[in-house]
């Protein structure tokens, strides 16, 4: 088997008295779409935060493409090919869509203070070159009509799409998505699912996503990790996970109708 794109080994993350993740291990194959599911408060977002470096786990390791990144700062992980979106959109609200995406090019740009401040020459060439990369992504995600709009003024569904675009502007090897379809209507969800599949197929990006909508998870991911109270209770193909008695029990204990779908399906 080839080196996994991402490997978590015995990861443990505590907030004061709360243990958000307990001894979780799993691997993501290069080029695949994996999903993390689990009831609210199960520790999914915390796990993503540990992977992207927003929090540092007290125990365990995060291995990215064979390299131990557990002690690295978030920006160091980004320049190695890791990108993410946030559950509660974290865009640069006062900037235009275009500028948000251009920030995504930060790690690929090299002009410092002087070349930037003098602009004409290297500064302008670099900006134009990266503007072209960004325009490709704008076309890909069909957001041409809003490229000059201030992000804070956009509808929620569009903001989610812009956040995906910003992550793609990094041209990452691994894309972490925290509930990319939460709060969207059916049509928007369908679009988003298509964009995620296209990203994976056309750009070869490995995807690890947290998602509540079971239909989507079953449709697009090849492997699913299930968390409950910070513990991994299952890890397998969508079909295996659905049949798993632990998973059924964890979800039947929940009132959430949407999530309960997993047990019935």
């Amino acid at each position, binding site marked *: 088997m080839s080196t996994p794109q991402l490997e978590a080994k015995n990861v443990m993350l505590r907030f004061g008295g709360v243990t958000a993740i307990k001894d979780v291990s799993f691997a993501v194959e290069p080029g695949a779409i994996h999903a993390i599911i689990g009831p609210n408060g199960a520790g999914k977002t915390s796990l993503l935060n540990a992977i992207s470096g927003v929090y540092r786990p007290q125990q365990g390791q995060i291995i990215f493409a064979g390299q131990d990144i557990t002690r690295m700062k978030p920006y160091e992980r980004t320049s190695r090919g890791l990108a993410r979106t946030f559950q509660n959109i974290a865009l640069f*609200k006062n900037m235009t869509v275009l500028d948000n995406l251009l920030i995504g090019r930060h790690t690929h740009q090299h*002009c410092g203070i002087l070349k*930037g*401040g*003098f602009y004409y020459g290297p*500064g302008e060439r670099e900006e*134009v070159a990266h503007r072209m990369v960004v325009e490709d992504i704008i076309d890909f995600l069909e957001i041409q009509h809003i490229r000059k709009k201030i992000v804070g003024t956009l509808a929620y569904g569009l903001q989610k799409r812009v956040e995906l675009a910003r992550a793609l502007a990094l041209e990452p090897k691994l894309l972490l998505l925290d509930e990319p379809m939460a709060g969207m209507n059916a049509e928007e969800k369908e679009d988003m699912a298509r964009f995620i599949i296209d990203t994976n197929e056309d750009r070869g990006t490995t995807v690890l996503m947290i998602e509540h909508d079971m239909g989507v998870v079953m449709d697009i991911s090849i492997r699913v990790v299930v968390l409950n109270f910070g513990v991994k209770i299952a890890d397998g193909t969508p079909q295996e996970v659905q049949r798993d008695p632990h998973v059924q029990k964890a979800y039947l204990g929940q009132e959430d109708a949407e999530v309960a779908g997993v047990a019935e399906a």
Partner: protein
Amino acid sequence: MATIRCGDFKTSYAKDMAIFDSAFARWCLALFLLALLTVPLYASSYWMDVTNRVGIAIIGAVGLNILTGFTGQISLGNAAFMAVGAYATAYLGAHLPGLPFVLTILLSGFLAAVVGMVFGVPSLRLKGLYLAMATLAAHFIIEFVATHWNDVTGGVAGVSVAPASFFKYSLDTDSKLFYLIFGLMFFLVFFAKNLFRTKVGKAFVAIRDQDISAEVMGVNLFKYKLMSFGISSFYVGVAGSLLAYQAKYISPENFPITLAIDYLAMIIIGGMGSILGSILGAIFITCLPELLRLGASSLSGTFPSLVGLFASLKLGVFGLAIVLFLVFEPDGMAERWRKIKTYWRLYPFSY
């Protein structure tokens, strides 16, 4: 939807990203510059002095705005960083008299940048009011040094500043200084404007808007916050250097904490995170006391008591102006200007 004037069609990304989006705007700017060049020909020495102070204030306000308005790091240290630039110029003038003034100004700016970066280190851990307190401490530390390091600063008495000179040529009048101040001002404004079109400037704004997100997008927070302190303090230091040349004699009294607050007022009234706003704010705050003084003296014939009231009147009107702006135009004069422009662009269909 009406965008940028009819028939103005962008043919390349480079043009789409230009600062002045039309030939009309560029012509207006050129005319304005030409008019400005002639100011020393007819301005009285009083207005020459005010004009030079406006130019210096613009450089300082742009500098502070880079740090506070664009990067979101509140600083009360700018009067102190200005003092660093000013004292450096005085010191270099006295000890290296042969040094061309351009180098003196550059070195003064760099020294202020280094000091600014040192006092910017706490910004990695501190935000908002706490950072304001830390930079306030920077102000008092530097003020302490200025009043006690007699050999360099002349202590409370101060030091005199040799005029800006280049070999035999010396900028010894306000009219000659005008060209230096405004030349540098235009260059630095242009430089700042460009900075925010490229990687470094955008990273600053990203830090202001969402620092966690910025870091996840690959921005090294510590490095870029320090860079922002450095660039900002460089501008402020250059402003201090020019202030030293203009004042010819400096002492700690030139750099009180109220000066730092004046600069904050400039960028708040003008517009946080706006270069144009820094310019408008600097003009407004520098000219307001002069206008009040003129008003008071023209009324003094009829109401002699007004002149005595002037000092308190100045502070009152000053405070009132800030409050009115915060209430009615929280985004500053630059935003008001943008709204007026949009209104006329769409006129008469301005609904």
